[in-house]
């Protein structure tokens, strides 16, 4: 009896390992180009740095994507939509944040409309530093993410699911309510 359970566990682990191998080298991005850091993505994607050799590519919708890129500052209105997009993604999902604005607010640290710390609202797997981060930094960040996926460290989505209440509380505190319904949103 124990043996079969163990066997199943082993199969599950083996399967997990295989799928992690595939996941690590096939990362589809959803680019939510919120801020200025987005300008560094074209270089990272095209001939100079060629993101596709890591198996990365742009995707059109959150359902298909594996990683959500937050490229820069987030106003409250954007945060609302980012949370919606993030929750629509299929698991496992990862989140990469660009620049200091996502870290501590950056130059918008005192703005009434821009949040300071993104990790209060969504779990972030990798930060990429620089204002804006150079394409080398971007590629390095993605390499880190791939390494983390391989080492089973990119567990932001699990953290989000486990601590959903805490995240939800922070989100509500900043946003009032998550979804907005007015004459523009019927």
């Amino acid at each position, binding site marked *: 009896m124990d043996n079969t359970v163990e066997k199943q566990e082993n199969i599950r682990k083996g399967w997990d390992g295989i799928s992690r191998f595939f996941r690590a080298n096939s990362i589809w991005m959803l680019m*939510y180009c919120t801020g200025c850091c987005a300008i560094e993505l074209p270089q990272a994607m095209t001939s100079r740095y060629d993101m596709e050799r890591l198996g990365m590519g742009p995707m059109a*919708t*959150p*359902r298909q994507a594996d990683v959500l890129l937050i490229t820069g500052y987030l106003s409250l209105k954007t945060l609302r*939509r*980012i949370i*919606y*997009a993030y929750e*629509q993604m299929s698991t496992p999902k990862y989140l990469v944040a660009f620049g200091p604005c996502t870290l501590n607010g950056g130059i918008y640290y005192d703005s009434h409309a821009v949040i300071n710390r993104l990790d209060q609202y969504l779990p972030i797997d990798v930060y990429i530093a620089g204002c804006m981060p150079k394409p080398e930094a971007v590629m390095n960040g993605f390499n880190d993410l791939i390494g983390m996926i391989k080492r089973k460290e990119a567990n932001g989505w699990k953290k989000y699911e486990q601590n959903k209440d805490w995240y939800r509380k922070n989100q509500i505190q900043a946003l009032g309510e998550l*979804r*907005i*319904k007015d004459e523009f*949103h*019927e």
Partner: protein
Amino acid sequence: MDFILSVPAIVVGLFAAAVLAYLLTKANKILGALITVLGSGAALAAMLMLKGDINSVQSLGALGFKLTDYGWFFSVLMLLIFFSVSFFNLYWMKKIIHPAAYNFLYLVALAGTVGAFTAKDFIGLFIFWETIVWASMFIIPFGKSRNASVVYYAFSAFGSLSMLFGILYLYSKTGSFDIQYVLEQASMNTTYALVAFITIGIAGLVKIGVFPFHLWLPKAHGNAPDTFSPILSGGLVKAGGFAAFLAVIVMPSYKVFASNALFLGRELAMPVPNYILVFLGAVSIVVGTLMAIKSEDFKKLIAYSSVANGGYIIIGIAIADSLSVGGAFMHMFAHALASAAAFLSAAAVVHRTGTTKMSELGGLIHRMPLTYLVYLIAIISMAGIPPMSGFISKWMLFQSMIGKGMVFTAAAAFFGSIGSFLYVFRPLSAVFLGQLSPKHESVKEAPFLMQVPMIGLSLLTLLFGVFPNIVLRFISDILKTAGLDGLTLNGLVISGTNGQLNPSLVSLIFGIGFFIALIIFIIHPKSRKVDLMDTYTASEFIYTPELLHYSYAFYAPFERLYENAPSTEKWYAALIKKIEEAGQLVSYTFFNNKPRIIVFWMVCAVIALLWGGSL
């Protein structure tokens, strides 16, 4: 015993049942509707039992009945459709203005169809033909529009009168009304043959709704009571196929006119009159397809699709080789089942929601899954996709067309075939898939007795798609008695001019493919169930399901390409206007209150009376 189980008995019985239904409906509506179910069911059973009596001749007073094999085929098909639809009558008694008259006329129309298909004489054929026309003409205004009935009658009268002229002309030449004899005599003489071909052919074309007589179909089918549309489209329209079959095959037009073949050389010989029919069929495929793509109304869309499918049938009959005529018969069979099922599912939707406008519906799959499946199977058959019966007939027709090298006809048929994907998908997407409107939140599945005929028709469609040779064997016999070669059927395999088809194998492999896909689906991680409104909206918040439902003007970019094309509808409207103007002119000059005109006419009359003999 001989009389009890015979064609006249069925016809008389149906008339009697009609009267009974009328009387009973006055007492109890449901009971009256039940009579239509029982009556048509009993007639179907009797007709199936009569299979052994094919070619028997009976008479009822002056009317002779002869059960030919094609007559049996058509009768069984009609009875099947009437029987299936009659279940719906039970639920429609409250919605129809005159339930008693409806039940009466329903059974009268059925008696008329059976009579017309089994008549021995032309006179009997004409009487029963008119019975169908009149019965359905009175039923149609029970639906949405009286105008539809007028249009229907105008077209039908044209066809009937044309047929009457042909019948009387042939009688004056041959001295007989017997269908078989008259047509045999006619085929000896090219002129007689041409008259018979044109007059009876026109009656068939009008009935089947081929261009330029297609206008009554969407009007009548779209506006008839929801229970009668499947009868019109699945059943009565096929009577046109019967008339066309009489004109083209029973009187072997392809032999009579063989001398004036259009394209000589190779295997392209095709008589001009037949080619005209083929051409009309091709045009109606294109017109029907384009108009169906444009329709906003569920029922109108299926009606226009009947126009397109009528085109296939006419082409198949007019090409007049065994494969094409067999294909046409199979197509009549498949399309009767499929379009009846499609109209029945439309009726079920109407029963629950009260509308046929596609833009007002949506997402009904979550409330009426069975109706959805019925419609799905019907459209797979209508679009000619395996493993449904529509595929077999289209395959046979294509084989024949390509074998003959008919480039333009085949182009039209290909267009109609691919175009049918467009229009059949439209209701699927707009009515059943997509977002469920909040006002249909509490809609329920169709009631049980409505499900029965719908499931029955779907299963038949599937059965004859997987094992079409059950029908094709019989069709082959029909072809042989009509003087054509039989079909080449070998076990489960159908052979065409340039290829073979094994529908059972195709279905089996499709089943295997589906099974593999199912396994792939099951072994992978389970999906998370989300709400319909939780879709990708570029992360914007939308709360109204109607706004997220893409259904109005579905093929707008495609429609825009032909919105300015010449329209038959406008042409007829202009014609009507012209006739009205002419009538006004006549009434102005002859029928008014001016004394001098009246005096003038009185003088004319007196002169006519006085010298009438010598004038």
